[in-house]
């Protein structure tokens, strides 16, 4: 995974709360067996509306999505993160994230930055006043900047460290393989096995 320190670019206001992952990417696109090529599927139903924010040329090169509270709730589909990433988003800002979505983002290098509701409202106002206003999300200082406005954001320390270092989760875990084996050797015999006993 690539190291992330700062995400720069155009901020896109998604002025909605409770955006579930079914809206981020509808189920019909989940039949694919690949991990890329989901850019057209992002917000597929909403993008049919010409007034939807992603259809506004001012936001064509958006990299930072600024959304209302409870972004990414519902289904566990990691496709939601893949679609945002394939479209070009590198960071999503929201006052609250669905737990699974937040975890998936961290695994795929999409920065999920949690800010206050007031900060989101302010950013929405600034973007409305000046569409295309530059934004930056700084993982080192844990701050979001839109135009002249700067706000701190929350992200858990472990995810932040992994993103800053560009570390692969599985390789990290396998450093503890001897502990895993030791744990397995002590596993009680009543615990489930899916294969018939040998």
């Amino acid at each position, binding site marked *: 995974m690539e190291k992330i320190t700062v995400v720069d670019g155009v901020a896109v206001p998604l002025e*909605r*709360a*409770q955006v*579930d992952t*079914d*809206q981020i990417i*509808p*189920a*019909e696109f*989940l*039949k*694919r*067996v*690949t*991990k890329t090529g989901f850019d057209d599927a992002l917000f597929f*139903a909403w993008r049919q509306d010409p007034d939807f924010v992603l259809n506004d040329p001012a936001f064509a090169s958006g990299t930072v999505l600024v959304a*209302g*509270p*409870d972004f990414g*709730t*519902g*289904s*566990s*589909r*990691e*496709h939601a*993160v893949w679609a945002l990433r394939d479209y070009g988003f590198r960071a999503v800002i929201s006052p*609250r*994230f*669905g*737990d*699974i979505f937040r*975890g*998936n983002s961290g*695994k*795929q290098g999409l920065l999920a930055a949690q800010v206050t*509701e007031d900060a989101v409202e302010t950013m929405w106002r600034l973007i409305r006043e000046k569409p295309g206003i530059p934004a930056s999300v700084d993982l080192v200082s844990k701050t979001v900047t839109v135009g002249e406005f700067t706000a701190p954001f929350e992200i*858990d*320390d*472990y995810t932040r460290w992994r993103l800053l270092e560009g570390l692969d*989760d*599985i390789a*990290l*875990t*396998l450093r*503890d393989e001897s*502990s*895993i084996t030791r*744990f*397995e050797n002590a*596993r*009680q*015999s*009543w*615990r*489930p*096995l*899916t*294969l*018939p006993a040998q």
Partner: protein
Amino acid sequence: MAKALGRTLAEKVWDDHVVVRGEDGAPDLLYIDLHLIHEVTSPQAFDGLRMAGRPVRRPDLTIATEDHNTPTLNITKQIADPVSRIQIETLRRNCEEFGVRLHPLGDVEQGIVHVVGPQLGLTMPGITVVCGDSHTSTHGAFGAMAFGIGTSEVEHVLATQTLPLTPFKTMAITVEGELRDGVTAKDIILAVIAKIGTGGGQGYVLEYRGSAIRALSMEGRMTICNMSIEAGARAGMVAPDQTTYDYLKGRPHAPKGADWDAAIAYWNTLPTDEDAVFDAEVFLDANELEPFVTWGTNPGQGVLLSDAIPAPESFDDPNEQASARRALEYMDLAAGTRMKDIRVDAVFMGSCTNSRIEDLRAFASVIKGKKKADGVRVMVVPGSARVRLEAEAEGIDKIVEEFGAEWRFAGCSMCLGMNPDQLAPGERCASTSNRNFEGRQGKGGRTHLVSPLVAAATAVRGTLSGPWDLEGLDGRMPETAVGAGAAAQVGNDLRTQGGTR
């Protein structure tokens, strides 16, 4: 977790699965006892293993089934949609290559992954269960720590049988009292979600407790834990008790002999200690509950069936007001409309929330001897091939067909419409599933979440209805109806038959 006081159920199960305790803000490395797989969220994970040259560490703790894409008609024919077919074939190839047990379409143990695990006796108290599906919370009904994961985590578990995780906070949802006839587990959980909101459970594991929960069957407890994610919580749990043990005993993968005794001894230590402290607590009075239904486009937008659609202005939060306005526009409904005046085009009886034998019995008890309302399409989809067989042995298929409804094969079906079972644009559906999101059951489709009893009465009348609304009952429940706690036990003969491919 250096707590001086006692521990909660969730903390006990967590502590017993910590492989490496995280230090300085690092997550704990948690061991996973059971990994359930299906076709939608696994192909990219298996690809990842192949690219890194990694095997599946514990195929003997992994099991797969086909459910999201599978057709519920003509299951012996080739799957018509080529993209769905490729995804199913990919799962079959991956399971073959990596040595994972698979129950494919046509197998007696095929079905919705969250119906299959419990029915095989693989889901049990005190274990950790994960699956690339947010409704994995279902398995918490047994006192397991069970939660949905993304595809990167699926790959992680396949490769290491562990996950790095930060401990959840704990929330007690206490439901005291006795449910009235006609009020079910589904109504409890819809009421809980309306109370705490779709984000209220974020970061928490919910423990459902109190006399109303204790009185529920395992099916009812599964319905409740299933929808924990709709309150934002990754996991929901119920402490194991005699109801749990009675359900498990004799199932193909349940512990036997000395293992059973050892398991029971351990399971009895799991319930939350009396002096344990939860990070948050919510109370609900079961005596006051009535059937609950949703009017909007998220599961928190619900009211009593006897109530009317609230005005968006009645919400304090501006974001919720905006959501309500959007929802009413999408649903083509007006504030103030009585829920019982809403006419539906379709009724869907199924999904991992409500497709087990007790759910089908409840539905059948209301429709028995009646005809469905004109112009309403009614689909009944059992949760697994085995549930379907069991229902047929009881004659439920005949009741469904004589009613004028469709009796289908097992799968996720119209809960999310990945197979051909979808609503047409603008169609309105009373659904026993878990999500009323925009377009969830088909592009432009409109969903009202309901219990199996409400689904059945709605199918009879054509408008959202409870069983009390049916003619000739004078406000009483039909005598055959199955209440929340009155379900018969699953037949021993069926559950011990067969098992592996």
